[in-house]
């Protein structure tokens, strides 16, 4: 099972004011808030962590059947190696592995329950208006859509 999440950074900028009082406490753990506070680019770190949580939640929701809104109970950890942003997201005793790409206009994370599967995921990202016709029939393993971007992942 795979998950993915794309964040259109330009839309996120106008859609969400994460600097609002109380906002970060409702979404991020203390450790994640330290990552944000010490990041070179705080905006980017907010959306990296958010897309990790969303991508992991999409798998966890299908595995457990639990639908809730508890972003702070999904704990991210990040490892920087070369140009890749690998990480993991823990939800209680369940762990999902993630890989995030950061581009000038969007952040995209893929997630899987099995570490080795990460390298087998193929990613297709489309920007408006160049979406594939009838992408719902393509049977992607997971679909994510935000702003101008559509991300489909296959395994």
């Amino acid at each position: 099972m795979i998950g993915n999440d794309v964040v259109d950074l330009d839309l996120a900028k106008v859609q969400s004011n994460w600097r609002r009082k109380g906002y970060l406490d409702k979404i991020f753990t203390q450790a994640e808030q330290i990552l944000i506070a010490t990041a070179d680019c705080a905006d980017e770190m907010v959306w990296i962590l958010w897309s990790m949580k969303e991508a992991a939640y999409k798998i966890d929701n299908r595995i457990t059947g639990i639908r809730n809104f508890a972003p702070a109970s999904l704990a991210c950890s990040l490892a920087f190696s070369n140009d890749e942003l690998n990480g993991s997201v823990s939800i209680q005793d369940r762990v999902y592995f993630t890989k995030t790409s950061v581009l000038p206009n969007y952040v995209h994370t893929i997630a899987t329950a099995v570490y080795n599967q990460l390298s087998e995921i193929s990613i297709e990202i489309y920007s408006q208006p160049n979406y594939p016709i009838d992408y719902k029939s393509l049977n992607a393993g997971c679909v994510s859509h935000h702003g101008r971007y559509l991300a489909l992942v296959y395994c």
Partner: protein
Amino acid sequence: MSNEEIIHKLKPIITTYAPASAALENLNEESDFIKDLNINSANLVDIILDVEEAFGITIDNTSMEKMLTVKASIEVIKEKLSEK
């Protein structure tokens, strides 16, 4: 506060973050923030912060977990108001 009064107070908050739609026009207890109203999940936090301000309550993360529908939100708001 009755359910109708709570919905009346919730509607302008929800309208700030939901794209215009028939589901928004017909907002009711069964409305689901994400599935029916197409609210971006990052904006759910804004709704919860706005609800805290409008009703003068504090919503802990355990209560927030359930707040995916108008109905669940009404229950949490009532519970927190009764604790005041």
